[in-house]
């Protein structure tokens, strides 16, 4: 493109009338000259002029093409035309925009979350070069090893180390990170104000911290005078700065991070460092892994293993495939919204039949008309996308608010600081989805409206092959199918939640779980036993949830068949303290607990799997030794007792004996009153003895275990609810349109003696027919998906029964009722047709 070309194009675009006028003048001049020539050749004037025109043809359109702005010109015309149309039917435009916006909002909200964890890179310098270092085996890096790594020649240009620890400040819990001096410099993260940490801070006598921006805002109410104040953690450090907004480290729990402090031997443990290195330019991951393995083999005995720290979650293709069912469920709502709009557009296209027919018979190209109709849909989709983003913001806010108020405080606190921003990716996604749905809901009506037979239709000649209602009914049946599927998902989840609500966890409401470091175990136990309000009841293995312990494989001594079950170490007091009576056999004895005898207690579910004859106690059991089998477990065990089913009923639990003063065990205590208050009080008492002590309430443990299912229920119910609303409006729309269209026919029927009830029944029957069609497709699909899911993720069966006749029946009933209800108003309208009026109408 050259300057003259650009000038001509701009001129053609903006001085359209003038350019057209010039073209007309130029061509007129030519005809004038030709006429003159013809006259000179002996024709009379009239004949000469006619001849000149005849031979001239119509070069205007070709000349316009040469301007190469036709695309924009046509677009501009189409946009203006569409806007004029919307102005005439504003309700139509509004309903379309709102429907699509809701469908887009649901998907945008999900994408926003996905974007925040998996797509948005960490806001640090060149995050693509950052890799977390691990080894393929159990090993934690010490500070000394970190120093050694830094002094070696490795594929890393620089390495940072950090260690996290949970702190409680004014009753709120968050993560404090102890980091190496080069941490901020290496990541290229500055301070919002004050300063960041520097290597010399570790040598300072005075302990210092840098607050995270999020913590400064939410925990310290954005106090502008925070610098120089001291935190109430055991070290009592001075705040020297607040880190740049949006930075929360890249250790994985950035939403929780309150502060960074320099790592110092003596004060922090320095025994479990999270190591992140920056790869030297030009070195690939595989090459770096090989290079680092030399070092890790030396210090840890295992090869090195690198994980990118560019984004919060590193997705591989399998993770994405695993997530795809979620994406499908959400996009179904958008597809339903599109189906609704398609039906509305079809109805609108029908009423524009005459206009389009005339344009076609006047020679408008079909492609040109389709393009115009698609422009119209896109024009509706763009505001829908913007509205969708706005709705998703509100929905995210609202659901976070609800989540925070129901979740246990420690999880809720992290959520409160988690940011889900709209960036260009979210914007782009929603816009693309919007335009995609415009094509989805616009193309079918556009093709339908411009098919060649429309020309006949414009003359009032409806041929036999002309069946617009088939398409519309098909769309509604399709909607009912999706709606039924979503209802089944919601129903299955609901049943799962009911089942999990009645799930037995034993006595949890007044039990606290205390984790102590082994060096202070004795003093802590003494303190607890001297407290009159507290009763030490048991010890359990140190795992996050008592009921969601690790799994191991067990087998009968003479059989190769292995059973996967959850295991837990428990002291004898566990079963009495948590109200879990021994149903068969006996409890562990004190001696067995102290000597870690090869005995076990199993839950009823596991006992029935292993010994269907019912007698479990006294039988022996083989522990399948694997790399992850805890070391002290003997190969052969004797089952001494069977207890009630709690926790995981599918896999069952197996309990091994332990004692309260065994190292590495958490202590369970019972204490009356509100567990949250009791937790704070005990934490305050024990922190003086062990500054690393942690206290949880079992009630919170259980609710963190059950809340995810609760959340799934809310999400699926919301989606099913939306689907239901869309279906109702879809059915209503189609029936109302059909009644309006068949007004004359209904009038004739009534004039011939059909009763109002019979006429209403016609409409209702049509609605039911659609419902049955939709259900007939949905049920086998749901059954098939359920079968596949069951075989793919057998774990799900524990909570969700995907093929649940009760749910299927309830959904079928609900869909039929809803379809009948949606046909109520249209059928009343049909019954109200006055034959005298309609028959006289044309």
């Amino acid at each position: 493109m050259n300057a003259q070309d650009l000038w001509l194009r701009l001129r053609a675009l903006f001085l359209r009338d003038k350019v057209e006028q010039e073209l007309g003048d130029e061509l007129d001049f030519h005809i004038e000259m030709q006429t003159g020539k013809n006259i000179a050749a002996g024709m009379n004037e009239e004949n000469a002029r006619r001849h000149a025109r005849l031979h001239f043809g119509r070069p205007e359109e070709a000349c316009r093409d040469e301007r190469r702005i036709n695309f924009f010109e046509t677009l501009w015309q189409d946009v203006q035309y569409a806007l004029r149309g919307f102005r005439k039917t504003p309700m139509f435009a509004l309903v379309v925009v709102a429907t699509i916006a809701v469908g887009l909002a649901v998907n945008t909200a999900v994408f926003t979350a996905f974007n925040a964890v998996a797509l948005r890179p960490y806001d640090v310098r060149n995050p693509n070069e950052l890799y977390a270092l691990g080894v393929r085996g159990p090993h934690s890096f010490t500070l000394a090893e970190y120093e050694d790594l830094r002094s070696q020649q490795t594929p890393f240009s620089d390495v940072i180390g950090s260690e996290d620890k949970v702190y409680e400040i004014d009753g709120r819990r968050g993560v404090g990170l102890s980091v190496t001096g080069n941490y901020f410099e290496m990541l290229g993260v500055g301070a919002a104000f004050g300063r960041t940490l520097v290597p010399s801070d570790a040598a300072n006598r005075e302990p210092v911290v840098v607050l995270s921006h999020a913590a400064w805002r939410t925990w310290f109410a954005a106090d502008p005078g925070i610098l120089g104040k001291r935190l109430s953690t055991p070290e009592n450090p001075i705040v020297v700065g607040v880190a740049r907004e949006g930075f929360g480290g890249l250790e994985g729990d950035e939403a929780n991070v309150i502060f960074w402090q320099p790592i110092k031997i003596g004060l922090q443990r320095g025994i479990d460092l999270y190591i992140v290195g920056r790869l030297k330019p030009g070195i690939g991951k595989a090459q770096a892994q090989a290079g680092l393995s030399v070092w890790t083999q030396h210090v840890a005995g295992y090869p090195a293993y690198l994980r990118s720290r560019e984004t919060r979650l590193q997705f591989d293709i399998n993770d994405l495939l695993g997530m795809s069912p979620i994406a499908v469920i959400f996009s179904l709502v958008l597809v339903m919204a599109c189906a609704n709009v398609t039906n509305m557009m079809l109805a609108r296209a029908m009423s524009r039949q005459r206009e389009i027919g005339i344009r076609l018979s006047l020679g408008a190209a079909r492609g040109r008309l389709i393009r115009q109709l698609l422009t119209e849909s896109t024009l509706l989709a763009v505001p829908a996308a913007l509205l969708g983003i706005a709705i998703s913001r509100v929905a995210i806010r609202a659901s976070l608010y609800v989540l925070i108020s129901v979740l246990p405080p420690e999880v809720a606190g992290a959520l409160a600081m988690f940011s889900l921003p709209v960036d260009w990716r979210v914007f782009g996604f929603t816009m693309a989805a919007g335009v995609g749905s415009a094509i989805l809901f616009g193309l079918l009506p556009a093709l339908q409206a411009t098919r060649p037979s429309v020309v006949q239709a414009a003359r009032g000649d409806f041929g036999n092959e002309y069946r617009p209602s088939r398409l519309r009914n098909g769309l509604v049946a399709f909607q009912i199918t999706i709606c039924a599927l979503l209802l089944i998902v919601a129903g299955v989840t609901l049943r799962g939640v009911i089942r999990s609500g009645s799930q037995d966890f034993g006595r949890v409401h007044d039990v606290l779980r205390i984790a102590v470091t082994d060096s202070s175990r004795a003093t802590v136990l003494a303190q607890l036993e001297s407290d009159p309000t507290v009763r030490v009841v048991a010890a359990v293995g140190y795992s996050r949830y008592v009921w969601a312990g690790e799994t191991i494989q067990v087998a009968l001594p003479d059989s190769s068949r292995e059973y996967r079950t959850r295991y837990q170490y428990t002291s004898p007091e566990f079963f009495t303290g948590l109200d879990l009576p021994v149903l068969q056999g006996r409890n562990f004895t004190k001696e067995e607990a102290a000597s870690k005898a090869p005995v076990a207690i199993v839950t009823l579910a596991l006992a029935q799997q292993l010994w269907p004859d019912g007698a479990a106690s006294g039988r022996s059991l083989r522990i399948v030794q694997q790399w992850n089998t805890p070391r002290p477990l003997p190969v052969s065990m004797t089952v001494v007792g069977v207890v009630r089913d709690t926790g995981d009923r599918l896999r069952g639990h197996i309990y091994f004996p332990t004692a309260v003063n065994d190292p590495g065990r958490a202590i369970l205590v019972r204490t009356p009153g509100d567990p949250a208050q009791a937790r704070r009080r005990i934490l305050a008492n024990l922190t003086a003895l062990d500054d690393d002590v942690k206290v949880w309430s079992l009630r919170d443990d259980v609710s963190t275990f059950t809340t995810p299912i609760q959340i799934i229920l809310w999400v699926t119910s919301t989606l099913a609810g939306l689907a239901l609303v869309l279906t109702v409006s879809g059915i209503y729309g189609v029936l109302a349109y059909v009644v309006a269209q068949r007004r004359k026919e209904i009038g004739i029927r009534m004039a011939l003696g059909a009763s109002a009830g019979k006429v209403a029944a016609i409409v209702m029957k049509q609605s039911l027919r659609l419902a049955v069609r939709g259900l007939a497709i949905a049920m086998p699909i749901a059954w098939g998906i359920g079968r596949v899911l069951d075989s793919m993720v057998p774990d799900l069966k524990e909570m969700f029964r995907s093929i649940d006749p009760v749910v299927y029946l309830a959904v079928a009933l609900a869909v039929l009722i809803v379809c009948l209800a949606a046909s109520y108003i249209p059928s009343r309208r049909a019954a109200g047709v006055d034959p005298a009026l309609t028959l006289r109408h044309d």
Partner: protein
Amino acid sequence: MRQDLLQGTLDLLILRTLQAGPLHGWAISERIQQISQDVLQVNQGSLYPALHRLEHQAWIKAEWGVSDLGRRARFYKLTAAGRKQLELETKSWDQLTEAIGRIMRLA
């Protein structure tokens, strides 16, 4: 005998015709017809689009002027870039015709 123009040769003929000086569309078509002794007939349906195309390529420039009969007409004139293009196309045209001629004589 009337001949349809070979694809792409119209542009060359227009540029060549304009070498002598500015002309309007009608004059261009007349000039081509005359000089070719009525063998080449320029179809208006392709002449005007071609003129607009050449204008967009900045090989010619249009100006409004007054015709011999005192009427307002659009005159086209060769630009510097157009002159260069004409030289190029003339050369390749000569090569082409010579090559075809040789084949017709010798093949």
